[in-house]
């Protein structure tokens, strides 16, 4: 802790924008370099396109099948995003709800947490065929549930931790004000849990996409990324497979960035706090 107050960092302005760009520049350069290298090496070694297509071929496939009847990439990505987002909402909602219950009553914590830990150790992906059976193989709900189950555990575990791992002195302070449990929940526990919640949410965005796509592998509606990946691969159209993977990755990154942006808006103090601890 320094002796003088640290000036509040300005959020905008040309200087800040430039600094941020400069920060990302090396990563962008490495990514671009990798693509160029990939293109050149694959071309030079004459590796067959169905084993490892060049980036140019992948982008061509992306363009060709953006809205083709055989592999409608854009519509598929939309459908998969819908499933993942649905699963994210369901899983996060359930995770937060259970976290509130377990953190409020120690008995339920003793009851539920061991079960949750045991259930989390089960490879949940193995349930995909069952979920298709339970919630309808063609219904997006079966994929949403797959995603929701994957999302549930990290959200529940993190939010429970955030609600319970509160500075004991803060609880004593609230006790000295004769504050009730409800007030302590609102003024101490929930704000304390927010950073934990966002950490879990960032993890959950990725998990929800994994859940949705894996669910799709086990059958269902055909205009989804999982089916396009399976079908294009079995048709040896690997350039399309790669294009679908590229779309899935882009969706995942966009999802993550959205959550990170939301975190900055909701708990700006936390990002700044982290920055000073670096």
């Amino acid at each position, binding site marked *: *802790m*320094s*002796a*003088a*107050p*640290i000036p*509040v960092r300005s959020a905008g302005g040309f200087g800040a924008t430039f600094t941020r760009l400069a920060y990302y520049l090396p990563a962008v350069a490495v990514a671009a370099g990798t693509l160029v290298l990939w293109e050149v090496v694959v071309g030079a070694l004459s590796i067959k396109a169905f084993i490892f297509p060049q980036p140019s071929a992948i982008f061509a496939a992306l363009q060709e099948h953006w809205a083709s009847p055989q592999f409608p990439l854009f519509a598929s990505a939309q459908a998969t995003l819908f499933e993942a987002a649905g699963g994210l909402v369901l899983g996060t909602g359930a995770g937060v709800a259970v976290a509130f219950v377990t953190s409020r009553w120690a008995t339920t914590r003793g009851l539920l947490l061991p079960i949750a830990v045991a259930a989390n150790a089960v490879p949940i992906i193995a349930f995909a065929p069952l979920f298709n059976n339970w919630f309808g193989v063609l219904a997006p709900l079966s994929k949403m549930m797959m995603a929701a189950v994957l999302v549930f555990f990290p959200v529940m575990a993190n939010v429970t931790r955030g609600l319970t791992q509160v*500075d004991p*002195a*803060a609880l*004593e*302070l*609230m*006790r*000295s*004000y*004769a*504050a009730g449990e409800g*007030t302590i929940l609102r*003024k*101490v526990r929930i*704000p304390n849990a*927010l950073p934990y919640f966002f950490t879990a949410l960032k993890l959950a965005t990725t998990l929800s996409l994994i859940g949705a796509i894996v669910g799709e592998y086990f059958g269902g509606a055909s205009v989804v990324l999982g089916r396009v990946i399976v079908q294009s691969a079995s048709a040896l159209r690997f350039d399309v497979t790669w294009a679908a993977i590229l779309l899935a990755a882009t969706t995942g990154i966009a999802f993550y960035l959205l959550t990170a942006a939301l975190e900055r808006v909701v*708990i700006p*103090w*936390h990002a*700044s*706090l982290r920055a*000073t601890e670096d």
Partner: protein
Amino acid sequence: MPDATVVQLSGVDKIFGRGDVPVTTALDSINLAIGRGEFVSLIGPSGCGKSTLLRIIGDLTDPTGGSAVINGKPAAQARRDRDYGIVFQAPVLMDWRTVEDNVKLPLEVMGWDAARRSARAAEMLELMELGEFLNHHPYQLSGGMQQRVAIARALAFEPALLLMDEPFGALDEMTRERMNSEVLRIWEQTGITVVFVTHSIPEAVFLSSRVVVMSARPGRITKIIDIDLPRPRSELTRESPRYFELVTEVREELRRGGALVDDAGTGSAARTMAEGAVG
């Protein structure tokens, strides 16, 4: 007498145990009366139970025996009536709140309306000379400034009693002396009763009207020393012969009580032995 007494401790015992097995006698039949407007320091080696005693006054822990009466009420009732404000060794500020909102926290809990909350927070921060830092967050402040926010917060709802548990223990010597002067200024302005737990002999002598010297295992009051230094006290007080006499008197009393006192006023040997048993 009953009207002028803010804190009345009668035969207070505290025994820490594991289940039914008593392990440490932290406090052994403590009797102490603190009058309105007094500044009383509790000093002693770690493990003498001085922090525990403060927490009993604040009803943050229950005594094993005896009674704590605050403003003529049982300590539990006094806590529910919000009769005291407390400052811990750590500032315990909420990271997500600005300086102003941290000071408003007790006022929100106590149901003050928004206009009164803002007015009072501004007034308290002005008093603590933090007026420019209203909208800063705790991480933007130094340790000493954070502790000043904690004091502003403790005083915001105008409690009759201020409990301070080694509030400057984590600060460097220079900052600590500045904070001491600041606390005295507040005490003189508000007429509040202060119970102050400390490890530091110079700090206890400089601040107090009375210094309660305690010994460890079991925690007992060995002597209560009246500090007759003239007020208002200033930096010159720290250089007066009477100040040195009183510092020596407290130090000798601590040594008689079994505390090995080094220059910083910390019973380091007692500390390592008792650490963990008693807070």
